[in-house]
């Protein structure tokens, strides 16, 4: 049927013309919107990154001077390190916790729905609210966490968000708890799609639970693992809101990350050229991660429809 129609479309000129017109008409709003709001500013951002662009007055073309300045900017390298520290802390914690919870929840034991809801609730909460509440929980004198420490251990807890060693871990924990439910739900959906026959076949072949997990479960859910890893890595490289609320990049710059730096340079200091170069570096880092992961995906992902 569909083949016939396709052939008819190819044969009959008026129909294919009609299809071309409607086809373009239907995609036009989106395509135009993307050109104006995404492609054009992306090109423009690159041009701006090659200029000295003050908030008022004329821009000056300076070639790659901004990029050269970034390379020798020690603050930039520290910030890049902070960003990777955040990602390296968040991504494995998030994925392992999400997968572990999904495995615990996927077996239809009673009460699992309740747990799933509880773990998913932070996903439904605004990041800003979540960050504010955790800032309060981590507060040095009045914070709930330090009150618990005082109660159980009888000592004054640390100044979590005002200690250069502890601030980033605190932000990481806050971020993991905020979004682990999302990945967990994706994993549960994936686990439930693994055909039961595969487990039965594995059992007949004498596979234990561990073997079944690594030989059946993991290969079957690799597409989901890759998807969640990609999304989580990219999301973590763009971390901003929780840092803005909880630490403002401090103490002594220990939680200042790339997007925070871009925002600060662009919208607090109005160094648009320099900030655009930073933004382009962020864009390329994300691009590289996406490409690497797509390559790995081709090689490792077991099945894909």
């Amino acid at each position: 049927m569909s083949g016939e129609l396709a052939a008819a479309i190819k044969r009959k000129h008026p129909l294919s013309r009609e299809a071309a017109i409607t086809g373009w008409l239907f995609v036009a709003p989106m395509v135009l919107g993307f050109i104006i709001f995404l492609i054009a500013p992306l090109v423009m951002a690159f041009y701006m990154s090659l200029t000295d662009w003050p908030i008022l007055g004329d821009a000056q073309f300076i070639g790659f001077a901004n990029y050269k300045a970034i390379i020798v900017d020690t603050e930039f390298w520290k910030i890049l390190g902070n960003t990777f520290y955040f990602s390296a802390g968040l991504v494995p914690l998030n994925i392992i916790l999400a997968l572990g919870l999904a495995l615990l929840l996927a077996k239809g034991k009673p009460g699992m729905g309740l747990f799933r809801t509880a773990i998913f609730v932070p996903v439904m909460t605004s990041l800003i609210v979540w960050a504010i509440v955790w800032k309060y929980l981590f507060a040095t004198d009045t914070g709930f966490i330090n009150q618990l420490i005082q109660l159980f251990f009888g000592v004054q807890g640390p100044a979590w968000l005002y200690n250069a060693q502890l601030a980033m871990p605190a932000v990481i924990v806050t971020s993991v708890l905020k979004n682990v439910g999302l990945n967990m739900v994706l994993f549960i959906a994936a686990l439930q799609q693994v055909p039961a026959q595969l487990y039965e076949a594995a059992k007949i072949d004498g596979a234990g639970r561990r073997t079944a997990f690594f030989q059946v479960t993991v290969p079957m859910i690799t597409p989901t693992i890759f998807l969640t890893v990609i999304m989580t890595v990219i999301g973590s490289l763009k971390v901003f809101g929780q840092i803005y609320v909880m630490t403002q990049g401090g103490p002594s710059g220990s939680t200042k990350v790339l997007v925070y730096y871009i925002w600060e340079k662009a919208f607090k200091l109005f160094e648009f050229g320099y900030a655009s170069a930073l933004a382009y570096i962020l864009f390329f880092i994300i691009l590289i991660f996406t490409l690497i992961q797509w390559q790995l995906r081709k090689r490792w992902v077991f099945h894909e429809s």
Partner: protein
Amino acid sequence: MKAEGAVLKSSNWIAGALHYLVLTLISVVMLIPFLWMVSTSLKEPAKIFVFPPEFIPSAIRWANYTEVLNNTPFHLYYFNSVYIAVVVTVGTAFFASLAGYSFARIPFKGRDLVFLLLLSTMMIPAEATAIPMFLFMRDLGFNNTHVPLIALPIFGAEGAFGVFVMRQYFIAMPKDLEEAAMIDGCSRMRTFFEIMLPMAKPALASLTIFTFLTTWNDFFNPLIFINNRNLMTLPLALSLFTDEAGTAWNLLMSASVMVTLPLLLVFFFAQKQFIQGIAMTGLKE
């Protein structure tokens, strides 16, 4: 033999108990922030510092809520957040399903190339285009208006994602009905609006939930484009409130409760749709 069975049984029992213990523990960690938020939002300022901590306040102070409502234009923040999220959601659903349908079903030249380009725009971080966008909107006089907060998500990552989700859904739909309608002389436009779109309700529902949530929680765009107090959305207003309220945690928490509660109530009543919708939009490849 018998003893072995008993050992197996008791180890099963332990595993089961451990299973519930781990889940209970993590659920408690997830819920404590909310309980503490509600608890603090009802406390007298002096009681916030009390040690050991009080989970149920000894004296309940509703004034924390009325103070926030009376001293800040909270109703305006609410209105701004709701209406922007609704407009973005409707706009995204409309444009994305139109484009998604076209990419899935209408054969036209260059279609797959355009789709691929559109898809690749999902990789562009909004943070990378924010600076030129800020200048562009400033020159058009749209800074300190809601225009950027509405246009940028529809034609940004959310929109691209929407096109993708809708296309995948339309591709998987059976062709018979659509072809029958078109052979009967139904125009492409009518076929889309009267036959295909109603059948795409599950995908639309997922997209709606996803887009509404992302827009409702958006912080970066309001932070950049909005200075005017009366035009702020809830997350931005709340973040400023944090700076100003300092350690008036009781007020901050009551504001947080007011921001969080409505969405959570909706979530509890339509939990299945929410979780399935998010699982579906997340899983579509």
